[in-house]
């Protein structure tokens, strides 16, 4: 009966309750949607890192990641790829030759990272071929083809069919160079990546550097899902104890920090929203207590003990918070689900987003766990907000309150 009493009390002053419930609804809705929006941005960034830049797992000779030494090569990369493909959850693997060098056009030059790939294998591991905006991705035709990023193309002032000279170290430690013709220009969501990465065929870079075609610096592995990363990483490492196996979180630790930091920011943001709402709720409940002094006095006089009075005020506050909270959560969920498919196009800030490595098309994502945590936060806010008003109610003297 106390819970029914508290619920009915909530609707005594409908307008006031609706105002505060609306405030809670909008606050929670904004919090949920913003969390989903930021989550979507981070997810997109992670997918870009995995799908375009790193893949899930990479295998190198120990020390290569830190030093980029040309000599730290995996001797029989093809057999490594074959073994890796047989490991559960591995959907594709591709060997790469990775060299940091100089690229020069007729006008200027810059430092770049050259990645030599087997185009067909690489297509199964990374989605860079889907990011071509001019020309085509690497294929079996033509010798010394090169695919470069849009940012680098602008920097080198080149376009399709232009020649770029790349200077590398060969197997004999001599400096050598080769002319490569631009066959494709790509654009990812990361300007910095586009300005520093060029792709050539494995066979072309092997010929230039004197490699035998079986060697590679890196084997990139794509998994069937992100969650399998740790398990698959252990299996790969067990298969190649002499090689160094790193997953995307260790290759790009900033991506891991991004996920955890963004989660923390979002929860801090939600706490700030709830704290602001908390004061609104406390204010409303104090008004409620002031208006009902006589009734509370009567309830205490006829034998409603302090615990029950406290519970009643607390339940009213929790109902007030939870009604708004549930409406905000449900609203936030459905709006998020709509935009999860439709996406939000922030076209006007495209350049700004790209300079930070983010796509201007954001697909908000909300996890069920987040919804549960937010619901708990709303309940805790309701309970917390009720403490002071309930305390004020308990401090009433029934004999004075009745005659107020």
């Amino acid at each position, binding site marked *: *009966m106390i819970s029914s*009493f508290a619920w*009915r*009390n909530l*609707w*005594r002053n409908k307008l006031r309750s609706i105002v505060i419930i609306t405030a809670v609804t909008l606050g929670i809705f904004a919090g949920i949607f913003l969390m989903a929006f930021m989550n979507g941005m981070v997810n997109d960034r992670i997918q870009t890192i995995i799908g375009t830049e790193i893949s899930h797992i990479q295998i190198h000779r120990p020390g290569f990641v830190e030093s980029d030494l040309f000599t730290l090569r995996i001797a029989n990369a093809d057999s490594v790829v074959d073994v890796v493909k047989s490991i559960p959850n591995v959907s594709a693997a591709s060997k790469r030759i990775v060299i940091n060098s100089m690229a020069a056009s007729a006008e200027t030059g810059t430092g770049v990272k050259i990645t030599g790939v087997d185009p067909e294998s690489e297509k199964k591991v990374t989605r860079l071929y889907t990011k071509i905006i001019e020309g085509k991705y690497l294929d079996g035709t033509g010798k010394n083809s090169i695919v470069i990023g849009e940012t680098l193309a602008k920097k080198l002032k080149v376009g399709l069919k232009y020649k770029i000279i790349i200077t590398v170290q060969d197997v004999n430690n001599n400096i050598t160079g080769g002319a490569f013709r631009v066959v494709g220009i790509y654009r990812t969501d990361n300007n910095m990546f586009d300005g520093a990465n060029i792709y050539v065929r494995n066979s072309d870079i092997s010929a230039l550097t004197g490699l035998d075609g079986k060697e590679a610096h890196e084997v990139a592995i794509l998994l069937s899902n992100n969650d399998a990363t740790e398990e698959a990483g252990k299996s790969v490492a067990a298969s190649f104890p002499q090689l160094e196996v790193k997953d995307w979180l260790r290759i790009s630790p900033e991506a891991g920090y991004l996920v955890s930091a963004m989660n923390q920011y979002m929860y801090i943001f939600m706490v700030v929203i709830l704290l602001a709402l908390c004061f609104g709720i406390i204010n409303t409940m104090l008004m409620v207590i002031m208006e009902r002094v*006589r*009734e509370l006095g*009567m*309830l*205490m*006089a*006829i*034998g*409603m*003990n*302090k615990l*029950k009075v406290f519970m009643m005020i607390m339940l009213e506050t929790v109902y007030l918070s939870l009604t708004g909270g549930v409406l905000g959560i449900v609203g936030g969920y459905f709006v998020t689900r709509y935009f999860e498919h439709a996406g939000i196009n922030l076209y006007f800030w495209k350049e700004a987003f790209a300079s930070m490595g983010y796509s201007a098309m954001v697909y908000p994502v909300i996890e069920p766990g987040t919804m549960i945590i937010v619901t708990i936060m709303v309940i805790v806010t309701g309970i917390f907000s009720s403490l002071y008003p309930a305390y004020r109610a308990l401090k009433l003297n*029934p*004999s004075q309150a*009745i*005659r107020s």
Partner: protein
Amino acid sequence: MSIIEIKDLHKVYDGKSLPVYAVNGIDIKIEAGEFTAVVGPSGSGKTTLLNIVGGLDEPTEGEVFIDGVKITGLSGREKTDFRMKNIGFVFQAYNLIPVFTAKENVEFILHLQGKPKAEREKRTKELLEAVGLGDRMDSRPNKLSGGQQQRVAVARALASKPKFILADEPTANLDSKSTDNLLEIMEKLNREENITFLFSTHDQRVVSKARRVITIQDGVVVSDIRK
């Protein structure tokens, strides 16, 4: 044994310059089945007296026994529990719960006592019928007249089968017809069910119906007349 026994009761408030002696040495015994009115001018101390007898206030000195139990000195929690089980309150302003129906208002105290649903419903129905509101059980207070609301308050006060009913100026907000009606019901309950009533009142109609009239002035009993 007396239902209410008041011994040398004093209540002193700290005034701005001088102490205010609201109750200044009152000794009263009220027996079961009495229909007693406490009268006196405003500020005479009758409300303070009733508050102390009802366990809503503590005296500065003196003792109050209800059916042999000393209630002065009980802890707040013990007093709340004692009030719930032993004292029925009727207030001047009715003080019904506006979000509850008449039935729920009466039932509420039985709920606080943890009575089972069947017992609650039976007792509530009996009481509302006894005060002539059997047909208004599902009406909320704002749909009832002042007299009807006060009758619901009487039914509520009786719900827990208290040792006595304490009524603080119960007819102050009622018109003549409602007052007569309420007094008739209370008299009937007193006569037929031997329920003890203790009123504070200014209303001569209540005084005329009371079988014992205690007059208080300046915190002391100046007359105690049994009719």
